[in-house]
Each structure stands twice: as C-alpha cells, then as structure tokens.
C-alpha cells in the first residue's frame, strides 16, 4: 500500500469522531489502537478492514449496529481508502482550512449520522421524560409533606 501513514491516521481519527458523535464513547487511545490494529492486520479486504476497526472501536454489543451504519456510510462510494483519502483531503490541507474545519466536519457528521442521530435524539427525549417524572413526584412529595 502506497498509503502515507498520516492519511490513514487522519481518516481513522475522523471515523472515530463520527462514531463518538453517534454515541459510542471512544477515548483518544482507541484511535491509536485502531491505527496500530490496521497496521498489524494490513488492509487487505474491506471485510478485514471492517472487523479490524470493529475489534477496537466496539466495546458493547449494542454499538455494533451503530458501527455498522457508520462504516457503511463513511466508506460508501469511495472506491477504497485511496479515494476516501482524496475526498477527505481538502479538509486536511494547511492552515486556511482551519476555519472551515469545524463546519466541514459537522457537515460530514450530519451526512453520516442521519440514522444514528435519530437514535440519540430518542435517547435524549427519554431522559427528559424521566426528569419530568422525577420532578413531578418531588412536587407531590413536597405537597404531602406540607399538609
């Protein structure tokens, strides 16, 4: 593979950020692990690449679904890593891109996680509900106490 290691690292970093946004908690260490794993396995086929990243990034069975969606969207339409790198590169070049970066990555994330964000939003709603019930109960308890 004539892939410069840096590009691979950047892509894995971006992918990890995408996963984090989708609700898989990942520390910086897992990015390093993922890079080491990809280097160790050598990117042969897409399937191997998939399971290599899966081994490092997924730590819970439920996260498998999120990972699967993210991977498919992230690496779709890009012939393979080379093309992916070509597509990602505008965001990576030099200083002027810095201002654009948050915006660009946000756009990538939005595009990536239509499905996953819905799940997240649902989760938030559930949490909100829970909070309301607690406060309702608290109000009632206080009332009882007063009487």
């Amino acid at each position, binding site marked *: 593979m004539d892939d410069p290691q840096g590009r691979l690292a950047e892509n894995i970093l971006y992918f990890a950020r995408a996963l984090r946004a989708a609700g898989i908690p990942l520390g910086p260490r897992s990015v390093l*692990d993922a890079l*080491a*794993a990809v280097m160790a*396995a050598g990117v042969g086929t897409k399937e191997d690449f998939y399971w*290599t990243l899966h*081994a490092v990034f*997924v*730590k*819970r069975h439920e996260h498998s679904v999120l990972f699967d969606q993210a991977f498919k969207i992230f690496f779709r339409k890009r012939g393979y890593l080379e093309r992916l790198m070509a597509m990602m590169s505008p965001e990576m070049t030099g200083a002027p891109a810095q201002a654009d970066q948050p915006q660009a990555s946000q756009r990538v994330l939005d595009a990536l996680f239509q499905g996953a964000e819905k799940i997240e939003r649902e989760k938030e709603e559930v949490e909100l509900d829970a909070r309301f019930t607690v406060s309702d109960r608290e109000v009632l308890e206080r009332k009882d106490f007063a009487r």
Partner: protein
Amino acid sequence: MTKNATKLAPSSIDATLKLLADANYLADRSLATVLFLALKMGRPIFLEGEAGVGKTEIAKVLSSTLGRRLIRLQCYEGLDVGSAVYEWNYAAQMIAIRAAEAEGEHDSARIQNDVFSERFLIKRPLLQALEPDPSGAPILLIDELDRSDEAFEAFLLEVLADFQVTIPELGTIKAEHPPIVVITSNRTREIHDALKRRCLYHWVGYPTASRELEIVRAKVPGVGKKLSEQVVGFVQALRKLDLFKSPGVAETLDWATALSELDAIALDPAQVSDTLGVLLKYQDDIARLEGGKVKELLDQMQTELRAAE
C-alpha cells in the same frame, strides 16, 4: 522440544482462520480477525455472548494449537484475591514456626523470613500466569467474569495493565512475557468500560445455519446429511422463539450426537419431544413446546428446507 512445541502466533488473519479450523473450530472471519489482532498486539481478548456459543472453547483451542499451557480462572460471586492470585499456606507456616521453636530457634526475624518464603506461597491462577513457562507465555482464561464482584474486576484491571502482582512480603512479581488473556462473559451484568477498553472486544453470536451445519458435521462425524440439516434447522427455528434460554451450539452438538446414537435418520415429532431435554434446560421452555408446537415447527422447517433446495 516436543511435537507440541510452541508455535508462533499466526502471521495473518487467514493463518488464524486456518489455525482454528485445524483444531476443528469453525470461526467466522470476524472472530479470526479479533484473535489475530489480540495475539499480534498483545492485548486481552474479551468475548461476550450467550452461554454455549463456544467462548471458553476458543481459549482451549488457542492453548492446544499454539502449544501453550492453559490456566483457567473460573469466576464466581465472592471470588477474592486469595483464590485468584495467591495465599499463604497458613497451616504449614504454623507448623514451621512450631518446629523452629522446638529446635530452639528464637531469632524471630529469621523465622519470619523463612515463613514468608516462596515455599509457603500457594499460587493461584493469576500468579501462575505471570510466571515464566518453558513452552512460552501461557493462555490465561478468565471465565465468566460477569459472575465476579466489581471489586475483583477493579483488581483485575490493575493486573492486566502491568501484568504484575505485588506480594508485600516478597515483592513485586512481573511477567517477563505477558500471558495471552482470554476473558469471557455471559453478560449477566455489564462489565466496566475501563476493563473493556484494555481489551479487544468481540460478541460471539449464534452461528448462521450454514456455519452451524458445518460445525455439526465437523464435530459429530456419524451424523447423516439429512439429520444434520434438520437438527440445525430445528434449532435455528427454536432460537427465533422467545425462549428463556435459547439452545447454544453446545446443545445442538449434544442433540445431534444423541439423535445419531439413537440411529435417527430424520426428525419425527415424537422423538423430538422425547429428546427436547437435551436442547432446552428450563421446564417453562419445554412446556411451551408441548402440544402441537413441535410438529408445527417441524413442518415449518421442512418447508423452509425444501424452499432452500
């Protein structure tokens, strides 16, 4: 060096897959990938999944194919450092002290020194796993970690971080070559993320019908073509029911063995009902299949098998 000499860790995912297949363990490529990476990167493997899908078996297969010693730590509620790492042989120490006193030895510092020597140390699995082994770093199987307490889990995290254990009276024992660690969990509770982060995680699920068929044919040589297809088809159909405990691969194998011992060529409802106890371990589950349910499932499966042909 014997025939069982230590083999080098596989050099690729394909080699890992072959290594497992040579030991009659038919794994998905995903599992082989995780094992390969864990061996290559020297990270513990964390296998989670329902009971009876072959998690423990993986450690055994690694041990036999790589020619390493298998050290097993079976977890249970209340497992403590004394049973997992080391313990002083208190009774022997007492006798030694008495004997020393009887011989007129009154130098207490010396007695203490003697008594806290390796001779009186009972080494439990974790400590054994840190010791050098002539056949290479051993395989440490920490089985059913979800059954242990969280306190033990925290302790384990420490051991896995540095592969060393400190015994106050003796000092720190550090593994020269860290063992290959395989941790399994049936997920009766969630294992803490901090521990999982150290490991490469893999969920071992039920195999697909075609994979399970291969497994049955590899492990139960006497089983006929038709019977094996039907056994697998029936078990796969059972897993779709909402049972308290779905049958695992281990149960499929037991059932196939039992039926082939009974010289069955194909499944028939009466025989299935009679042998259901091999597959289902809970009375509630068995009760659910009483009445016409077994026949219904068999018919349904037969139509599916025919459709597949």
